[in-house]
Structure formats: structure tokens, C-alpha cells
């Protein structure tokens, strides 16, 4: 009827997958592949119930397919083997630990939580005693009687005063308990005695117990949710033999939530109340003929046996957990106090009177233009009664928000003119120059020094003059210095420093550049303090008069420079920074400890072919630790962290550290024309070739048989080149000599600012020359030396040189160049870039060669492109070289012909 409507069917379970008609039937899994695996994916073979069910391990062996591998003992120096004790668990499978395994591991109460305090001492003594006893295991009897282990919850309850049989919860007042009992009594329909062990003593009269005694609540047995077993209906109880024999047939109050009342009554048998003993009664049994009362043969149910209210009356008095003596309770205010009960800690009572409630007023509304900055009233600041510390604090707190009135500053803030006005002094008419304050002889000496430096700089302009000709007397006579111009470079600096330091109050947190030299530092600080006072001649006064003039001038410059370098920061900034506890040693730079000596001596030695001690230098060199390891060589300097050449730190402030020590040697050595020393390495060969005419014939003589015109042309060109080069070199020399390269200055004054570098350089130059002027007649050498000692100057020199060189060779290459890629094959491609004079000749030759070497021609075209890349190298080839190679072409033909002959001779 409803076969077509599928909605009528109720479907259970998961439907099978719909069969696809087109899909080929799946192959049934063969029997040997129908395997059972456990949850770990291991095969479980069933090999018959009689042989033990599933196979264990790997085919009833231990472990895996590889078999049971014993643990290997591995012990190394780094990882010591631990003493491993095998436990039975090590040999068990995971299943054995599961719930139904042989060693189920589940969460259990551990020893320390199981019972009261573990008596380890007693256990130990017992163990000892058992060993000491006459019969071993004598205390077996003692161990039979072991104290019952209690759970930690019971233990805790006991500690809190709970006793066995008491209920848990707040103490109950007597009245309530009574009511409880009454209620219970009311329920009983028949005269059942009061049950409960605790209730027995309460049966007496009420006045026996004092008023303020409370009692523990009735013990409550938790609901036993035991499953129903049996096929009887709900509520049916079968014949209880004990009950039946006791003759208890009366029903009691059916309390579904208190089923143990029955069991209790059974335990404390109410036999004495029942009149009939040994009578069997029950629902299923009738009344014997001899029985008198048959009223309760048939089960009668009355509504009184049932509770009408769910849960009944609340047990207890509502004093949940309140066990304090009752006298603390306020009788009158119990209703109020009760609400606090359970919340009041021990020893406290509820207050009788209420405290007044605090009124909290809302904060005032901020005006929209309010700025949260607090400023003190100036009148407060102005009061002299305020202690200086407080005033300082106020001033710092004020910060830069309020502009400082000039009147409020101390006398240090005042200008000298202002102070003068205050003091009522007259205007001094002395000149502002420092020179005026000097003694006349000192002044004269300063002039001399200055002029000396000036003349040296002037001398640099025409550097060809031997510097020895200039003497001091001529210098003095030459120039009549102006006093103002004398001190211009340094005085301008001094002005700067004065401007920056004037009016600075705090002198405690300034940088101390001369810490290593305490006396110098003291002088420097004196100088600073004078600067702060606005002394114009602070430097001169703070210098040590015992020093030589040269030292003083040097120190003067150092002081001025240092004072500018370490200018005091503005007060707002300086208050925010503190001086580091450990100052870095930043006033030193790393310099190679051992410097290579002067080149001149060596050059002389090389010229004389005296190799050996003169040309050899030995340095301490630290190879890397790993490098030694890789070379299988013990470390030469074990423990030293240095790699490479050891470096030393030198004072950064001293200019003279950067100048080589060998200047004295330099001076004694015959002064060479500077171009010889200045030569870049690459020019040496060129220069020699140009200088020595005897070198030329190597190219010229070989070229002569070929074409004399070419040779002359070449010579002409060479001479031209030579002249040009000489000119250029002269120019360059002038440039170099007139002013040392900037890199030198940068290397020396790396830390100085750029804006002041020019003036500094001048002053420094002057300074050094002043120093040199005393004992040196060749101040030029001072700046020639660094070309070998200071690397930066080398690079600059060499770069200059390379620029010059590139003009002649049209190529910027360093080091020996590589020969041209090929001559025979690609000359045709390369000649187009040759100079025009040789081009024609070369082409001719190439044509000749092309004719001769036809067999190699097909390669040529292929290579042309490749060789064009290297044309710049070919340019580098000198003309003499070209000629030579072209010369050899004639000889080369022979060789190629020989080769051809050989080729032909091959069968």
C-alpha cells in the first residue's frame, strides 16, 4: 500500500553505500590478508583458543621482528652511563598497563594521601625487629592487624573535630533537633522506638542540656544508587529473611531519600518491641489460624507515610558551620546577625551600631583649557628663606617651561660688563689680545714660531727648494707679524670654547679627557673653570709655566680642542644623563704594534743586492686557532685571543703617534727626489724604462731591422710621452707637496667635526710645524713619511698616481696585468684599437698572415667577439711590446712553417 512512499519507513543504522552498477566488483580480500591489528597497528594473529588465543609479540617471541634487543651499554667521557635497574614494567607491553592488563596502572591514592601520617620510623623499626627476632617474621601477627587506612578527607574532618557517626555541617541547636525528632515521630504510624545512636541521650528532658550547647547534625548517608537487580517491579521488596524471622511486618515511613533508616532499624533490632518472635510474616504470607490480630495481614497504605513537601523541613538551625559558643551571639539582633553568620571570622562580632556612611563628592569638572602642568609661584621662588636645595629642586622641576629671568641668576650668569656695572668699575682699556699679557720675549718667540710655520707653508708652494736653506733668522727678518694675526686660528677656537663654556654651572659631570695624566687633567679642569668664569686668557693661565714653550703650545691647543669637543650639554639635557661608571677607553685607537720600517734603507740594500738582514723583517703573527688545527700544527700562542698581527692601543689625541718613529732615520738618509719614493709600484718599471735609455734598445734595436721610420716615430712619441709625464709628475708633485692629502688629516682628526676641520687642519699643521721647527730643518719630511706608514695616505697617493698613470696607459688596472689573450688568432680583431701609427703596419701583417694561415681562419671569426672583451688589456700593451711581437712574427713564421711541415709529415 505505502510501498512507494518511503517516508513511512523508519531507518535504523547506517545505510550501505549505494552500489554502482558500472563499478567492477571489488576483489574479496583473501584470507591471508584479513588480519587483525591492535590499536598500535601490530598484527594480532589468532592461533586457536587452545594455544593461547592471540599470538604475543612477534610470532610468540619477545618484542619485534628484529627480536628483543638487549639494551646496549654506552658510556662516554661526556655522558656517563647511568646505573639502570630493570623493572618488570620494562618487559611489559602497553596493554598490560591498561585496565584489564596484568599490571593495571590507574590513578590511585598515593601513600602520603591515603592515611594519617605515615609512620616511617615505626615501619623501619618493625623491619629491624623482624630481622632481629628469634623467628624471622615473628611480627607476622602484628602485621595481620593493620590499622585501617583512612582517606585524607576523613583525616581532615577528624582534624576539624568531626567524629565518627556525626553528620557533616553546622552544629545544630537542641530545639531544632528535637523538632526533627518530633517530626520523625509523627511519621511513624506504629510505635517504633527512636532510632539513631546519637539520639539516645537526647531522650531525656530538655533542661538537662544548657542553652548554648549545640549538637552535630544528623549523619546523612548518601543516596545509594545501587542498580536494580531482579525482575520485580519498582518498590517491591522480597521476603527479607531477617525481617521475617524478627517478625517485623510493620511498614515505616517511606523516605525515598533516607533509605538507611530501614537498615538502621534492622541493625539495632527492635525485637524487644515486637511481641511476636519467630513469626514469619510478610506480604506474601497469610495469617496463621492461631494468629490473633490479622489487621495487618493485608497491606494497608496510608498517606501519612508520605511526605507532602519535597525535601521536608530543613534540617539544622540555619547556622551553617557556625559553631561558636552562643553567648557571643546577640540575642536581640539575631535576625541581623544571622545574615552575617558564616562570614564573620572567629573572634569578631557584628557591630551593634551602624557606622556613618561616608559621603563621596564627585571631582570638579576640568575646564577645557586646563594644562596639567604645575608651576610654582614666582614669589615663592624669590623668597630667600627657601633652602638652596629646595630651590634647586624647584628650579629643576620648573625645567624649561618657565623662562628664567636674568635677574634671578647668580653672579655667574652675569656678563662681565653687567658685573662691572654692578661693581661700579671703569671700563678697562687694555687690548683684548692675549698677546698683550705675555712677556715680551715670549711674545717674540711666538711670533717667530708662527712665522716659521708660515714660511714652511710658503715653502711648500715652491717645494723644489731644499728646505735646509731656510733659516730662522731669515724668517724673522722676512715677516713682521701683526699681533692679531698671530693668534687668529687658535684664538678663534678659544672664543668658541669660551662661548660654549661660559655660564656653565655644573662642573661635576664633564668629560675628562686627560684622566691618565692627573696633572694635565688638573690643569685642564682649571682651564675649564676659568672658561666658565669667562676668562679670555684661560688657557695661558692654566698652563704649567714650568713646561717648555713647545709643550705649552701643544697643550694649549689640546685643551682648546678638548673643551670644544666636550662641550657641556644644555642644562635640561645634562640633568637627564649621568656619567657612565666605567668609561670606555675610547681615546685610543688600535694601531699595529709592529710597523714595517722605512723603505729607503731597504731600497738601498736591494740596489746593493744586500739581501738578508737589511731587507728582512720579522713580526709576531698569530694564526687562527682553527687554521692551526687544519694545518695539524700546534698553536704557537695558546691562550692568546689575538689573530693576525698584534695591535696596540695608542692615544688618539696625540698626533705624533701616527707619525713613524723613523723620521730621524728619514732625515739622515739622503733626501731623494720625491718622485722616486712617490712612485706607485707600477710606475717603477715604466719609469725606469723611461729614465734609462739603455733599456730602450731592447725594443728599439729589435725594431730597427724592420722599419727605422717606425722606430723614430716611436722614439718621438716616447719622448713626447716622457715630457708629458714629467710635466704631469711635476704638477702632481707640487700638488702633493704643497698640501698633504686630506686623508692624512682625516686619519688624525677623525673625531673632529667637519665644519671646524679646515681651521683645525691649519692650526694643526701650524702646530706640528712649530714643533718640528725646533729640531728639524726639513719639515716637509713630516708629511712624506706617512706615505709609507699611514695606509690611508698611501691609498690617496696611489690613487693620485693611478690617475696620472691612466692618462698614459688609458687603463686602470692594479697589479701585473695578464698577457693579451692571443696573438696569432685574433690580432685582426684587436688591431683596430691600436694606435694609428702602428695600425697600418699591423693590418698589412695580418693580411699576410691570413694568407699564410688559411687553415686557422675559420676559428678567427668565432673568436673575434670573445677577444673584443679583452681589448682594454691589449691597449695596455706598450708600443715597444707591439713592435717586438710584430718583429717576432717573422721568426714566428718559421715556427709555424715547421709545425705545418710536421703536420704534413704525419702519415
Amino acid at each position: 500500500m505505502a510501498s512507494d512512499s518511503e517516508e513511512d519507513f523508519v531507518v535504523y543504522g547506517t545505510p550501505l553505500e549505494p552500489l554502482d552498477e558500472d563499478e567492477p566488483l571489488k576483489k574479496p580480500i583473501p584470507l591471508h590478508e584479513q588480519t587483525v591489528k591492535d590499536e598500535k597497528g601490530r598484527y594480532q594473529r589468532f592461533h586457536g583458543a587452545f594455544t593461547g588465543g592471540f599470538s604475543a609479540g612477534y610470532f610468540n617471541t619477545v618484542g619485534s621482528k628484529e627480536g628483543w634487543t638487549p639494551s646496549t651499554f654506552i658510556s662516554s667521557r661526556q655522558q656517563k652511563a647511568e646505573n639502570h635497574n630493570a623493572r618488570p614494567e620494562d618487559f611489559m607491553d602497553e596493554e598490560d598497563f591498561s585496565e584489564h592488563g596484568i599490571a593495571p596502572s590507574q590513578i590511585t591514592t598515593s601513600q602520603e594521601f591515603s592515611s594519617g601520617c605515615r609512620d616511617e620510623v615505626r615501619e623501619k623499626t618493625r623491619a629491624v625487629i623482624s630481622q632481629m627476632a628469634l623467628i624471622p617474621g615473628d611480627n607476622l601477627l602484628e602485621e595481620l592487624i593493620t590499622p585501617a587506612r583512612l582517606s585524607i578527607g576523613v583525616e581532615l574532618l577528624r582534624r576539624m573535630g568531626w567524629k565518627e557517626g556525626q553528620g557533616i555541617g553546622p552544629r545544630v541547636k537542641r530545639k531544632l533537633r528535637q523538632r526533627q525528632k518530633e517530626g520523625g515521630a509523627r511519621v511513624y504510624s506504629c510505635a517504633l522506638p527512636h532510632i539513631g545512636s546519637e539520639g539516645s541521650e537526647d531522650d531525656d528532658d530538655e533542661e538537662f542540656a544548657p542553652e548554648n550547647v549545640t549538637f552535630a547534625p544528623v549523619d546523612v548517608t548518601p543516596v545509594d544508587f545501587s542498580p536494580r537487580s531482579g525482575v520485580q517491579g519498582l518498590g517491591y521488596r522480597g521476603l527479607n529473611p531477617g525481617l521475617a524471622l524478627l517478625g517485623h511486618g510493620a511498614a515505616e515511613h517511606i523516605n525515598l531519600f533516607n533509605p538507611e533508616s530501614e537498615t538502621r532499624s534492622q541493625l539495632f533490632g527492635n525485637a524487644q518491641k515486637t511481641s511476636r518472635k519467630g513469626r514469619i510474616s510478610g506480604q506474601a504470607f497469610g495469617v496463621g489460624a492461631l494468629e490473633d490480630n490479622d489487621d495487618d495481614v493485608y497491606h494497608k497504605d496510608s498517606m501519612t507515610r508520605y511526605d507532602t513537601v519535597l525535601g521536608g523541613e530543613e534540617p539544622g538551625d540555619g547556622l551553617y558551620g557556625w559553631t561558636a559558643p552562643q553567648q557571643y551571639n546577640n540575642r536581640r539582633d539575631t535576625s541581623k546577625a544571622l545574615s552575617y553568620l558564616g562570614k564573620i571570622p572567629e573572634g569578631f562580632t557584628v557591630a551593634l551600631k551602624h557606622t556613618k556612611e561616608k559621603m563621596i563628592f564627585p571631582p570638579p569638572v576640568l575646564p577645557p583649557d586646563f594644562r596639567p602642568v604645575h608651576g610654582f609661584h614666582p614669589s615663592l621662588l624669590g623668597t630667600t628663606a627657601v633652602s638652596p636645595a629646595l630651590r634647586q629642586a624647584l628650579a629643576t622641576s620648573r625645567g624649561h617651561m618657565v623662562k628664567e629671568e636674568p635677574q634671578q641668576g647668580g653672579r655667574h650668569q652675569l656678563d662681565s660688563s653687567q658685573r662691572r656695572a654692578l661693581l661700579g668699575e671703569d671700563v678697562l682699556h687694555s687690548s683684548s689680545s692675549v698677546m698683550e699679557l705675555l712677556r715680551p720675549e715670549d711674545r717674540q718667540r711666538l711670533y717667530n714660531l708662527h712665522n716659521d710655520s708660515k714660511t714652511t707653508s710658503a715653502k711648500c708652494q715652491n717645494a723644489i727648494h731644499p728646505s735646509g736653506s731656510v733659516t730662522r733668522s731669515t724668517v724673522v727678518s722676512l715677516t713682521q707679524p701683526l699681533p692679531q694675526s698671530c693668534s687668529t686660528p687658535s684664538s678663534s677656537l678659544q672664543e668658541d670654547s669660551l662661548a660654549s663654556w661660559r655660564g656653565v654651572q655644573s662642573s661635576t659631570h664633564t668629560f675628562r679627557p686627560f684622566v691618565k695624566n692627573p696633572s694635565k687633567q688638573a690643569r685642564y679642569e682649571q682651564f675649564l673653570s676659568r672658561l666658565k668664569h669667562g676668562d679670555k686668557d684661560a688657557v695661558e693661565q692654566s698652563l704649567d709655566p714650568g713646561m717648555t714653550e713647545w709643550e705649552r703650545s701643544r697643550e694649549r691647543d689640546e685643551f682648546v680642542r678638548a673643551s670644544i669637543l666636550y662641550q657641556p650639554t644644555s642644562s635640561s639635557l645634562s640633568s637627564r644623563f649621568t656619567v657612565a661608571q666605567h668609561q670606555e677607553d675610547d681615546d685610543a685607537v688600535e694601531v699595529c704594534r709592529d710597523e714595517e720600517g722605512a723603505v729607503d734603507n731597504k731600497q738601498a740594500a736591494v740596489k746593493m743586492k744586500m739581501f738578508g738582514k737589511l731587507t728582512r723583517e720579522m713580526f709576531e703573527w698569530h694564526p687562527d686557532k682553527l687554521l692551526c688545527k687544519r694545518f695539524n700544527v700546534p698553536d704557537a700562542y695558546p691562550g692568546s685571543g689575538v689573530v693576525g698581527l698584534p695591535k696596540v692601543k695608542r692615544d688618539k689625541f696625540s698626533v705624533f703617534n701616527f707619525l713613524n718613529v723613523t723620521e730621524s732615520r728619514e732625515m739622515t738618509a739622503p733626501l731623494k727626489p720625491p718622485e722616486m719614493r712617490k712612485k706607485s709600484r707600477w710606475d717603477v718599471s715604466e719609469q725606469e724604462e723611461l729614465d734609462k735609455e739603455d733599456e730602450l734598445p731592447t725594443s728599439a734595436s729589435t725594431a730597427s731591422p724592420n722599419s727605422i721610420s717606425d722606430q723614430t716615430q716611436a722614439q718621438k712619441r716616447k719622448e713626447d710621452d716622457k715630457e708629458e709625464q714629467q710635466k704631469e709628475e711635476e704638477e702632481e708633485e707640487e700638488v702633493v707637496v704643497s698640501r698633504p692629502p686630506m686623508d692624512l688629516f682625516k686619519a688624525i682628526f677623525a673625531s673632529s667635526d667637519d665644519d671646524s676641520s679646515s681651521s683645525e687642519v691649519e692650526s694643526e699643521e701650524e702646530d706640528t710645524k712649530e714643533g718640528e721647527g725646533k729640531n728639524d730643518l726639513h719639515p716637509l719630511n713630516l708629511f712624506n713619511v706617512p706615505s709609507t706608514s699611514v695606509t690611508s695616505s698611501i691609498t690617496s697617493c696611489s690613487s693620485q698616481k693611478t690617475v696620472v698613470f691612466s692618462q698614459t696607459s688609458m687603463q686602470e688596472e692594479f697589479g701585473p696585468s695578464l698577457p693579451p689573450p692571443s696573438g696569432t688568432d685574433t690580432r685582426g680583431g684587436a688591431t683596430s684599437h691600436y694606435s694609428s701609427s702602428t695600425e697600418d703596419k699591423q693590418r698589412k701583417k695580418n693580411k699576410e698572415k691570413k694568407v699564410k694561415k688559411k687553415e686557422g681562419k675559420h676559428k678567427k671569426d668565432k673568436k673575434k667577439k670573445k677577444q673584443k672583451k679583452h681589448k682594454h688589456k691589449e691597449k695596455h700593451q706598450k708600443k715597444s711590446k707591439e713592435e717586438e711581437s710584430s718583429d717576432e712574427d717573422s721568426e714566428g713564421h718559421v715556427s709555424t712553417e715547421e709545425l705545418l711541415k710536421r703536420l704534413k709529415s704525419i702519415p
Partner: protein
Amino acid sequence: MAFPQPKPQAPQLPQHLLRTINCQQGAVRAVRFNADGNYLLSCGSDKSLKLWGVSRGTLLKTYSGHGYEVLDADGSYDNSQLCSCSSDKSVILWDVASGQVIRKLRGHAGKVNCVQFNEEATVILSGSIDGTVRCWDTRSRRFEPIQVLDEAKDGISSVKVVQHELLTGSVDGRVRRYDLRMGQLHVDFINSPITCVCFSQDGQCTLSSSLDSVVRLLDKSTGEMLGEYTGHKMKSYKLDCCLSSKDTHVLSCSEDGHVYCWDLVEGSLSLKLPVGKAVVQSLSFHPTETCLLTSMEGCVQVWAAEPEETQDEVTMAT
């Protein structure tokens, strides 16, 4: 020595051209024997490095991976690895058999002129135009050099390693010898840009050729000059020099197309080998036998003491 030498043999010189190999890789910048002398490496200016058999002149393998012309190469003692350096500022460690790049070491600031394995091929030393010698570790995966020797004031043109000593020749005209065992650096001033340095086979002398067309033999320990060899021309190009396998002769390339061969003790020119008309750029002496490799332009020449009987190998291996 307990026994006298059986017969003092007359020193032989490689004066017979066995064969010429046209490498077809542009100019051959360097030609090197391998450790046992059975193979040779040619560094081409077309960025390739080629391995040849010496006896037959057959090309065995081409190693390509450099970005610019290859300038020098060296083979490890066990012939398993090669190292090469190039103008592309890199040093490459090659696997010989597969031709694969094992490691490409970058760090030099300029073109790398020379490269050398140490004795156990654990370290590669490369000298560059940037004035540094860098010691590269072949064992670890570090791409930074173990140590950088930056004592030279100018470009390094040549590096040699024997046992625990490094010898570097620099364009600043100094030959530096780093003694790892002693932890010392010896600097010999030559005054002319060094093009090539060599240790003698007994390890007691150093040979250095410089651009003043002089080859000098210096005592290693004192720095005194033991010999001076002149006559060739070496003025502008970086050309090689070497000692013969038995330390009997000093050989040097020349720009005039010859290889000059001097007697080591007497200093007299004993052989002037005409290679060609261009510059002989590189040469390498067989480690044990009397056999010399020279390279000129795109070809490599193999020279031996006796002419080979079979002449069919003379043909160019095109």
C-alpha cells in the same frame, strides 16, 4: 746518507715538445699539474676550467661556473677536489668526478689572482688583488674565511703553501712568509712587484720573480740572496716561475716567447726554450719527472726530456 748515490745523472731538461694542446677556452691564464702529474688543469679566459690527460692530451672534463676568466687552479692531494679562482672575485671548490660546484667562496673585494690547497686539502688559500689572503675552510660549512691575512699593502699575486708555511708575493714588492708553527711573519723586501713566488722542493729556499725582470732565490731562514737569474723579460705581465722537480734548475716565463731555464747553483742560462712568439704566460713543472707545461695564448705545450716515439699525438687536439 749512508749509501752514495749510484750514479750522478746529468740533469735533464724538458727541451722536447711532446705535444701542443689547443684548449679552445680563450687565453690560458694558468696551467697546472695535478698532485701526481698525470693530469693538467688549464684555466681559460672564457670562464672555464678544463682537465686534461697529460699523456694523450685528451680533454677529460670541463668545469664551468665562474663568472669571469679563471686565473688559477689547484688540485687536492687525493685528486678528488679542485679549487679555482677567478676575476669574478670568487673561489670555487669543485668535485673532480662530477664537475659540480661543492662550494663557492665569496669574500674577496677584487679579482682573485691565485689559489692553493694546503697539504691535506683542508684549507684553501686565495690571494686577491684586494691585498688579502683568505684562508677558507673546506671542512666546515662556514662561508667566512678562517683568517684573513691583510698584511700586504697591495694586491697579492702569488700564494704557495708547503706544510705549515704560507708564502705570499705581493705587488707591494714584498715576499711574506707566514710560519704557522712558529707564529711568525717574515717579510722580505724585493722593491719590485712580485709576480710569482715558489718554495724550493727541499723547503729551504724561496724563489720570487718580480717585474724588474729578475728571479731571485732567497734563503728561507735568513732572507739572504742565494742566486739571481736574469736575462728574461718580465716587465708588465704577471708571469710564473718555478723550480725543477729536483731543484736543479730555475725556470721562468718571459714576455719574449721563451721559457728561460737557469742552472740553480751557477746561475747561468742553460736553456732557452722557444715556445712561441707571444708571451709565455704560465708554466708548471711536473712534481717528479722532467716534464714541463707552458701556456701561451690559447694553447698548452707539454715538454719532456726525451722526444716521444709515437708522433701521432703531436697533432692539435682539436
